[in-house]
């Protein structure tokens, strides 16, 4: 075991069909599917990445986007250290929802939660810039005012997806060696479990077990 492991609980919020699950799928499995089922309640996935000699394990809660599911959201963002607030750059309404989420997170979530504002589906703009309905400047302004990271992404092409997570990872204070102890033992079994559902992690899992 060379690297200390930091776990980051991250939650995705945003209007229905903006591509939250697709972003996660791209990040976790480097895959994309045209017709993803809407998320019912929430989905849970994990992914490990190395950031500056550190292993960061993202524990990702991907939530349902429809307005009426909003009352469930606190259940998922409680204790979250990071949040992606996602909107669709071709849907102005989804940006309004994003504003609401930022406001709610600031009021209700953990004090020093790191929030990234993510404008997804920029691949659509490549063919036709007229499809853009949320100006980059407007989003940048919001990000600046509220102290958010800001990215424009495409889950379809993969543009900027890992940057989002790396950006978050870099902002989270990484655990030092003193915490390493806590991660041993318990985490071995945990990772095995997780990987039953998440084959993408299989290789990393092997290294985790070797400790």
């Amino acid at each position, binding site marked *: 075991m060379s690297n200390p492991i930091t776990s980051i609980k991250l939650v995705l919020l945003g209007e*229905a*069909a903006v591509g939250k699950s697709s972003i996660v799928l791209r990040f976790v499995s480097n895959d994309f*599917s*045209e*017709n*993803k*089922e*809407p*998320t*019912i*309640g*929430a989905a*849970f996935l*994990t992914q490990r990445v190395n950031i500056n000699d550190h292993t960061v394990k993202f*524990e990702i809660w991907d939530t*349902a*986007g*429809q307005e*009426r*599911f*909003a*009352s*469930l959201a*606190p*259940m*998922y963002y*409680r204790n979250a250290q990071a949040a992606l607030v996602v909107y669709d750059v071709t849907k102005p309404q989804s940006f309004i929802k994003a504003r*609401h989420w930022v*406001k*709610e997170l600031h*009021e209700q979530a953990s004090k020093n939660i790191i929030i990234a504002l993510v404008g997804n589906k920029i691949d659509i703009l490549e063919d036709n810039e007229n499809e853009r309905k949320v100006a980059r400047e407007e989003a940048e302004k919001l990000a600046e005012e509220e102290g958010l990271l800001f990215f424009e992404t495409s889950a379809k092409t993969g543009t900027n997806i890992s940057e989002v997570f790396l950006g978050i990872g870099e902002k989270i204070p990484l655990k030092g060696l003193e915490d390493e102890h806590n991660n041993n033992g*318990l985490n071995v*079994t*945990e990772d095995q*479990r*997780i*990987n*039953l*559902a*998440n084959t993408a992690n299989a290789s990393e899992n092997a290294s985790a077990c070797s400790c």
Partner: protein
Amino acid sequence: MSFFSSIRQKAPFLERIAESFTPTMSRDEKFRLQYKLPDDEHIIDDTNTDITFTTPYGTNHKDKRRKDENGNQLAYVFSGKLFLTPHFLVFRDAFDQSSCVMILNISTIKRVERSPSLSYAFALLVTLYSGTQILIQFIGLRNRSEQFCEKLKDMLKHNIPNAKRLPMFIESCYSNFLIEKNILRKTDIVAPKAGLGQHFKYPGQPDITKEKAKLRLWFEYFKENGENLAIIQNHTFQKLVRIGVPSRMRGEIWELCSGSMYLRFSHPGEYQKLLDDNRDKTSQAIDEIEKDLKRSLPEYSAYQTPEGIQRLRNVLTAYSWMNPDVGYCQAMNIVCAGLLIYMSEEQAFWCLSNLCDIYAPGYYSKTMYGTLLDQRVFESFVEDKMPVLNDYIVEHDIQLSVISLPWFLSLFYTSMPLEYAVRIMDIFFMNGPKTLFQVALAVLKVNGDDILQADDDGMFIAIVKHYFQTLHESAHPDSPDLKYRQITKFQELLVTAFKEFSVITEDMIIHERNKYKKTIFENIETFVKKTQMRRMPKTFNLSDKELSNIYDVFYQSIETHKISLGTGSSNMTFDVFLQFMGKFCDWAKPSKNDDDPVFKKQKQTFLKKLFNNWDSSKVGELTVNDVVLGLDKMVTPDLLEAMNYFFSLYDDDKDGQLQKDGVLQMSEGLLLLTTPWKTGKFVDLLTKKAIEDDIADEIVKETSIDQQASGSIELPSGVTIDEEKYKAQQSERYLKAASNFLQRCFEYAEPLQIDRQVDLLDLSDDNDDKPDEAKEARKKKFATIVANAALDPTRPTAIDLATFRMVILADETYELFFSTTLRDSIHLEEGANDSGNNQVLKSMFDGIIADGRRVAERVRRRVDSVATNKSRADSIETNTNESIHTTDTNSKMIDLDDFTTDHLEEHEELLNNSWEDMDDSAEQNARQERKIEPMSPSASEKQKDLIEFEA
């Protein structure tokens, strides 16, 4: 650990929740629920009977005992209760409900005749459309039986029109197809319209032989026990469902068990009509549905084709139109897609309807209260039935609903492979909502050992996910016994669910739901309020407490809207608005004056003006945000803003001028607003000061100079106030203000600015493509107006905003009204709990006396002024004015250098108003009756310049 306990908070909605909370169901409700009958069914009569069935298809049974020595058929006799409802005869066995339940739609009855019966006083032989005969032998008093028969006769008559529709309906049933094909040996017959599976294959491994065997079992069952609208359900029926309904039969069994078959029969053509009537309409639900159409069971091939997607679209949109309170909720797309594999659109539509109403009550509502409630109920079952597991979950801070919520919401469709999910649905439709709880508990039970190793939500989810994906595998792969090894995990799950957890009954669920309803509703209301408060527009003059109070009163006023259920429109109509404002504003409170038609009209007119002004989307209804923004403007502490706002209420065409009519309306509005002071119900600051001054004067007169100097001024104990005197004075002052207002308005009215009208007319002419005739007429009209303006001394005059403000500021009472009185008459911190306002007048006077310190303060000042300045010839009025000035700034704490609440335009406009420049505002305050200078020539010159410059 529980999500619910973590957000549990005290909420001020107890009464309202108690109201919408119905722990007991009526007999009819229970009856309908038990037999899944439509809402309009109710028990007309019931009686004890013995019942025997004989089906026409020669029960060529091995069972010899069923024929007597004469060759007559014999059959089982069931004893039980027979119920009559408007469209059904329902019979259930008295000893064992599951041994015989007959639900007979009356329109399937072809003939009813009296039957000779030996052992019974009275018997009826009922012959059905299908040929089945039912012998009903009445037990009990003959006249009771006669009575029942009479009522049955009535219902038979009522159902004649339905009977005409019967053949067509029967043709749409697969059971009928089986019978016709196999008994009547019809060869040209085709299977009725069914689900997508008909063309796109049914999910799961196609095991044709098994399917055929199962179909045959159902065929036999129908032969003996009737089918669709005239079926008898017994043990065998339940067994057949439990082993898994064959795919071709599934749609009909689902609609039969769910009772949606009865809805489909009683609402012919309604589904198609819903679609036709709403074609091309849009709604939020439609948008949401469109987003999800391609995302519904994408693994099933039909949902990648236009046909499959169109069917899904049709059913979901039709439902959203029928039930706009629910509209569309994610997960409905998946459930509906599941139905459409086995059912035609119309079948699926009605089935979805009953599913949302009875099987998953409130799950898909706007607040998803049913989902939250059942999660709490599920938590309590786990607590009770699996204490060890529960302790572990609590200890590890795992939230159960994080895992279980999707099971309930999508009825396991998103958790299990399709072929298994539909098996659960078979049982779910037959046994009701308890099925979900039983299966969910079984999942936890079967995976208990693994779950006890999980550390957090994530591991928990992974364990269960893996389990669901391996349901086809052996439950006991290591067992030496082959038979044991062959048991799949799915079979094990069913056994655990329906054997071990058969202790979970519908009654328990209802009981538990009632137990947690209140808390859940409170949590929802708290949450909804928090969210809405967060999304309220920016206001300048309202505190958080006031906003919260406005929110509460707003929703309390709209009785049709249930926040926790998410039903009913949340917008405010004018009628509700009247009551709403009455709770906050002294001048809008219900009072005796309301009996006076003139007053009533005044009130309605003014409030209508406000209502229209606040109605931002111009739909004749107000949202809570509209109301918040409106009230915010009304309670502005800025005198200018208050006046401007009032003026703008009457300036309908927004041209900045009011003509005679507008001025008259305005004065009516002012009369209404000032009524409580005119009638002496309240005292305003001027009166208050007058009273205080008078008291001070008394004291000054009675106290020696020495005492005053020593600073120990005591209020004399026996001060009495002549209330009536002050009331009368105040009343007079208000009347005078009103008449002065009108008089001045007309005095200072300027000729209407025609130029603007010209523009308007020109514009409208350009825009319209009116025939020349009309154009001519308009030109003429325009010419007259211009001529009038130029020549006619009686040409229309108008006042503009500046003049209006001048007129208001010229009168002390009205000025005070806009600077303070109006704002103070709106009690935004009250209202929620009403009452306590009736004795205001009394307490006002009491308050003045009680506030002895302030009076003492005044006395000191008065004494000082006596001491330094012997001339006490000043009129009382002057003194009053001075004191108003001082206390005003003291008590009201207007932050002069705080511009955050100001609007810049206002102040820019101020600069342009030349007359304001010339007036010294300090001087204004010192004079009660001020003379207004008409617009100075320089001012009008300036304006002219401006116009010329522009031209």
